[in-house]
């Protein structure tokens, strides 16, 4: 806790604020634009503050985008669950157990990530339309997981490599099965990494547009990224509503982010793995 509330600590806070302001400027610009009439920011001297604000965009967004927001939450949450359930045991095996073929498998996981999204989406559409998974939460969750599982495995495995093998093998000596070792040592110790992997899985699924637009027809479920397209036509775009929707959509996710980050900080596993 050294230096937390000293002058140098506050200096760093000030520097941090500057960094955040610079990097988040596009976001501010978006909020600014969401409160001004379309095209206002293209004027020779745009208003840096939305003084003549309009809440039109927000009115439109609120009246139509409630359902899509909920759909996105379900899909993103489901994706986190599926990704972790599949990635955790795999990462344990890849990081802690000895067998041939681990390297090719990791490599394969990376390579399959390079299949362009459109190819994946089109193929999944063909499979899903046979399985009845079009317009289905499960279908979207499974599709989004294709992007998040390899990622989650890599992150979890990298963290699990840092868990000394002696730790787990000691548990084995005490008579714990592999499954129990996994459940009662690996999983709790990896909490930090799980939050990281889960967080990004959530964000992946939240921001996905390609799968969302390909695997739904707009009849029953409609993720928020597709909902935004309601305001972008081929001949006109209601940027107020688009940006307002994006702002509103960021709110629940942002809250989740902050909470998750606290959890990362709270779950300091360094102590358990130390030396």
């Amino acid at each position, binding site marked *: 806790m050294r230096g937390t509330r000293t002058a140098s600590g506050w200096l760093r806070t000030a520097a941090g604020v500057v960094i955040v302001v610079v990097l988040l400027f596009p976001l501010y610009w978006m909020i600014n634009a969401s409160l001004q009439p379309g095209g206002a920011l293209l004027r020779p001297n745009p208003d840096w503050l939305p003084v003549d604000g309009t809440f039109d965009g927000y009115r439109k967004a609120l009246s139509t985008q409630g359902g899509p927001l909920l759909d996105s939450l379900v899909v993103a949450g489901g994706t986190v669950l599926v990704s972790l359930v599949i990635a955790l045991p795999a990462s344990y095996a890849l990081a802690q157990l000895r067998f041939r073929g681990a390297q090719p498998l990791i490599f394969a996981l990376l390579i399959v990530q390079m299949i362009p999204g459109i190819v994946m989406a089109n193929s999944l559409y063909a499979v899903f339309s046979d399985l009845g998974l079009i317009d289905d939460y499960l279908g979207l969750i499974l599709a989004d997981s294709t992007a998040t599982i390899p990622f989650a495995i890599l992150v979890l495995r990298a963290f699990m490599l840092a868990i000394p093998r002696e730790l787990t093998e000691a548990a084995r000596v005490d008579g714990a099965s592999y499954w129990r070792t996994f459940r009662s040592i690996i999983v709790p110790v990896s909490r930090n990494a799980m939050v990281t992997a889960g967080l990004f899985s959530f964000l992946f699924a939240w921001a996905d547009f390609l799968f969302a637009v390909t695997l739904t027809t707009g009849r029953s479920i409609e993720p928020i990224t597709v909902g935004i397209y309601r305001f972008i036509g081929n*001949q006109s775009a209601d940027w107020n509503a688009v940006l307002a929707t994006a702002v509103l959509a960021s709110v629940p996710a942002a809250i989740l982010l902050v909470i998750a980050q606290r959890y990362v900080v709270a779950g300091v596993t360094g102590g358990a793995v130390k030396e």
Partner: protein
Amino acid sequence: MSRVARHLVLGSVAATAMLVVTACGPSPATESSGEPAGEISELDYYADQQGSRAWQQILDTCSRETGITINRQTVPTDQMLPKILKDASSRTLPDLVFTDNPTLQQIASTGALTPLTDYGISIDGYYDSIIKAGTYEGEVYGLAPGVNGLALIYNEKLLAEAGVEPPRTWQDLATAARKLSGGGKYGLAFSAIPSEEGTWQFLPFFWSNGAELSALDSPEAVEALRFVTELVDSGAASKSVLNWNQNDVADQFVAGNAAMMINGSWNLARLDEEQGLDYGVVPVPAPEAGTDPVVALGGEVGAIPATGADRQQAAAEVLKCILAEENMLAWDTAHAYVPSRKATAEKFARDNPAMRPFVTEVETARSRTAELGERYPKVSQALATALQAALAGERSPQEALAAAQREVGRS
């Protein structure tokens, strides 16, 4: 056996061979109860709220009139064709499709569509150009409830301040645009993005000068491209046209950054909403006085895929209703399109004087696919690339178009 039915049989045989595609999909040619189905699915890309609402009203009206339930799907514009192709391969095509007219022949060439005349839909009284756009190999597969074209929209106040008359010829346009430029503002805004939208905006210059899509590197074509390039080089139009789609162009116009713009009638509703903006509309300037400009015909055509006789019959009932005069007028008024039947358009222009220049233009407008059919998209892409190369200063207009012609001739 009709050509379509033959395609279907061949299609199902091939599909059976393909593992994944098999299970679903009705076998259309066989089950004919003679009765129209009670519900159909419909696909369109009127995704923006205003357009979506107007279209929904037409669908509601026709659902009431025909007693057929319409399940509507809307996709973003650039997802339209991928979606139709996917649906075609899994035999889950919607019963009624409204697609951009230059893609119609492409879709018809798959064999998935049925001729509208099979259902007794009349093709009389329509503009020739829209019939041509909907025709593939001698059969009409698509008809539009409304069409559109580009015109020159100008800011009355800015033109009056500069003492400039709305331009009628290229010479006028160049002079006026230069006069209206300066101080971070530009005389003219248009779109030259590397896609169909860029080609569509360039075609009025290309065609009005007598160039043809079959010879992209003709002297007339080079002259047209040189004219547009000089507008940008002289600072009469921003170089950002390379990156502006038509929405952006309208934004620039509304923001007062451009005194004139090339854009479509659908913008008028939006321009009317802007307080303190007075605008006028004239046809796209022609190369010389006394000649008529030739613009490309825009608009979405309705088509009926082969999904089963009873469903097709129901889709035809709905399409007939949409094409009926009062519904056509309602849609075109709400969406600022021009009715696709001459007589209806005449009546429409009388009631909506602001639309007069667009109605006049549609009479001479050309279908983009009339000449080249399903080869059009490829040529269009090459032309858009040439436009980009010339405006970006990568190549001279001459070289850019020669390269485009080589590209098209390559296959």
